[in-house]
């Protein structure tokens, strides 16, 4: 065969492949302008069937207290359903970034696990529910009379379109200020309750050569968003803060400006090498006394305890300055994917997740509090007990960087705006970018 003919064959193969790749995209589901309103299958009238076979539970709880807590919940499940095999499908990687990518691949291929870990709130709703991949779990809540046991604020976060979409296993709090008690004592300080007190304490500490606030954002913009959302709450109050996430509060308003200005001011009190530290390395600065305070979720308590400290002895805790009375929540929860291979097993698992027994097995080990209001207080340490008290009495506000308040696209856009803001401290540009992120997410006008 002549050379030219061979080249012609190869070239046309390449062109055909390019063309097939471009044009032969799999037949898309009918594209709609509005997000699909997910339809619920008729709720099962009879009691859930006794499950058999195996269940595959997908999570990123691969190490430490998280893995042990999950194992404890598995024990509760196994005691109830000894015939069912539990397949612990985990994917390691910080905050689930790897797991989410693996999960997306599986769900898009129509190969869902029986249940998977997902942050309760918009991360679940705007990723999976609008893609019509989830079954609502309202019937599980109704059958087990859980609507009396979960605070209405939590039910609200879990709901969309009149249905509940996941069963929360735990509650973490975002707006906590942790501090080194010895450093405070040495400098004659008390834990700040307002932003003014915070800045005053910061001045005293700077003069003494101690970093007032430890920050470690090498892990990503979520750490900066974490601090920022406490400032937003301090200036807006819980009602208006919740309004940020449904379009009723204006992102261009003066309170948001004030929160950004305060963030710029806070950066003056932060360690200069924050982009070279992870959040736990920043917490270590507080442990060592190189820094006095850090604003981080209550998984920081897990870190402090893991290095041998005791709450109220070496380290103390207060709500982030100006946010007392409000509880910024995030929650790990489990959902029911459509087409779960073992639907009865998945429902049984969800029933264990939402039960008092399951939550009291998981949370003391994990270092979080149960989402139910009837947890057994005696199982939890002094900080977690105070968190449980606050959770039962405070205004509940969803967290931004941890998937409760906003979709993942919105969180990444806000994170990008934050990354630029931390460098140039340009309040006007950041506010415009934040407002635009709300518009791009389809929530604001």
């Amino acid at each position, binding site marked *: 065969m002549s050379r030219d003919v061979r080249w012609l064959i190869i070239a046309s193969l390449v062109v055909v*492949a390019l063309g097939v790749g471009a044009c032969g995209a799999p037949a898309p589901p009918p594209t709609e302008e509005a997000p699909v309103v997910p339809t619920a299958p008729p709720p099962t009238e009879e009691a859930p069937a006794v499950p058999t076979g195996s269940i595959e539970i997908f999570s990123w709880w691969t190490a430490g207290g998280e893995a042990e807590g999950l194992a404890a919940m598995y024990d509760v499940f196994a005691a109830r359903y000894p015939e069912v095999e539990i397949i612990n499908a985990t994917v390691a990687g910080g905050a689930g970034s790897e797991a989410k990518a693996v999960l997306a691949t599986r769900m898009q291929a129509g190969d869902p696990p029986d249940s998977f870990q997902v942050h309760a709130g918009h991360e679940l709703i705007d990723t999976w529910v609008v893609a019509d991949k989830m079954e609502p779990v309202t019937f599980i809540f109704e059958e087990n009379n859980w609507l009396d046991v979960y605070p209405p604020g939590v039910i609200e976060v879990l709901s969309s379109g009149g249905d509940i979409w996941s069963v929360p296993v735990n509650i973490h709090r975002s707006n906590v200020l942790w501090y080194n008690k010895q450093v405070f004592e040495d400098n004659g300080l008390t834990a700040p309750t307002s932003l003014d007190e915070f800045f005053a304490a910061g001045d005293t500490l700077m003069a003494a050569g101690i970093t007032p606030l430890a920050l470690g954002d090498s892990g990503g913009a979520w750490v900066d968003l974490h601090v920022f959302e406490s400032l937003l709450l301090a200036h807006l109050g819980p009602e208006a803060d919740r309004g940020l996430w449904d379009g009723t509060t204006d992102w261009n308003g003066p309170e948001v400006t004030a929160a950004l200005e305060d963030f710029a001011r806070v950066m003056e009190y932060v360690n200069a090498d924050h982009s070279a530290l992870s959040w736990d390395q920043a917490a270590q600065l507080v442990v060592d006394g*190189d820094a006095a305070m850090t604003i981080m979720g209550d998984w920081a308590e897990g870190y402090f305890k893991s290095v041998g400290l005791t709450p109220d002895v070496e380290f103390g805790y207060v709500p982030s300055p100006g946010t007392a009375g409000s509880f910024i929540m995030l929650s790990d929860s489990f959902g029911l994917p459509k087409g779960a291979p073992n639907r009865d097993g998945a429902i049984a698992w969800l029933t264990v997740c939402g039960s008092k027994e399951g939550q009291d097995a998981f949370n003391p080990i994990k270092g979080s509090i149960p989402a139910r209001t009837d947890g057994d207080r005696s199982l939890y340490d002094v900080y977690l007990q105070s968190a449980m008290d606050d959770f039962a009495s405070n205004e509940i506000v969803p967290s931004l960087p941890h998937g409760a308040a906003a979709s993942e696209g919105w969180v990444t856009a806000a994170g990008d705006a934050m990354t630029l803001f931390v460098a140039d401290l340009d309040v006007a540009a950041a506010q415009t*970018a934040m407002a635009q992120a709300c518009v791009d997410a389809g929530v604001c006008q």
Partner: protein
Amino acid sequence: MTHARRERWIAFLMVLPSIILIAIFVYGFIGWTARVALSKWDGIRPDYTWVGLENFRHLLVGQGTTARRFHIDLWNTFFFTLLFMVACVVAGLLLAILLDQKIKGEGIFRTIYLFPMAISFVVTGVVWQWVFAPGTETRLRGVNALLHNMGLDALRWGWYTDTSSIGPFHVALIPVIIAAAWQLTGYTTAMYLAGLRSIPDELRDAARVDGASEIAMYRRIILPMLQPITLSALIILGHISLKIFDLVFTMTGRGTGFVTDVPGIFMFETTFQGNHYSQGAAISIIMLLTIAVVVVPYLIYSFRREVEL
């Protein structure tokens, strides 16, 4: 069919499966990515609604954070590529010349210089992150601690935490360039050493007889003869640096103010964390075109040379 034609036909058939696989898994997927880049797929559910060049417009000339970030990425890639290539070529050439001096233990040195290439970029990134972590005045870390102990406090600076820039060049890229050059200088050293070794001794002797100094000999004879190696090294290094991801991601991430951000990281974060599949595809296509501009002319040039030979 003649024997020769049958042989050629069989040879073609042997290569055909590979061609088909590459056609599907490389070019087919490139085509599909281009299709996604021209649609508005945002979220888990595929959405192939045609939007033309909107994603590209949004990235390149838009007004929002996306375009700001992408412009920074392009500048970062430009300076990273430029300085990284220069560092590797210059350092590689110098080391090769030194190795060529018929020293004892040349084999050991050659192996040592090549070792970094055997390590994954991820490991390099993690370790160099520790090395260049600046710490603070009271709690120095890494190189800064070393400089302090040597009494060279004036040389301490923020390394990759430094958010300042010289024009569009972010100085935080310097530690990243050092780490990348550390890893790949062995490659250019090996290539240059082979090139130097291939220059016949008679040429050098003739040059010396003609009265050329060592420097002149290098300038006038040896370096020009190494040009093809320089060219191919630049192409290989260029295509690595234009799509660099794992080294930067594990070493510094995007950096405060995106000082060390590169399109690879942007693509990963926007696709797998933000679920903006179309935007990620558009970034990928732009990266592909950038690399094609560098690699394709070289391939055509080297292919023509083979044909001539």
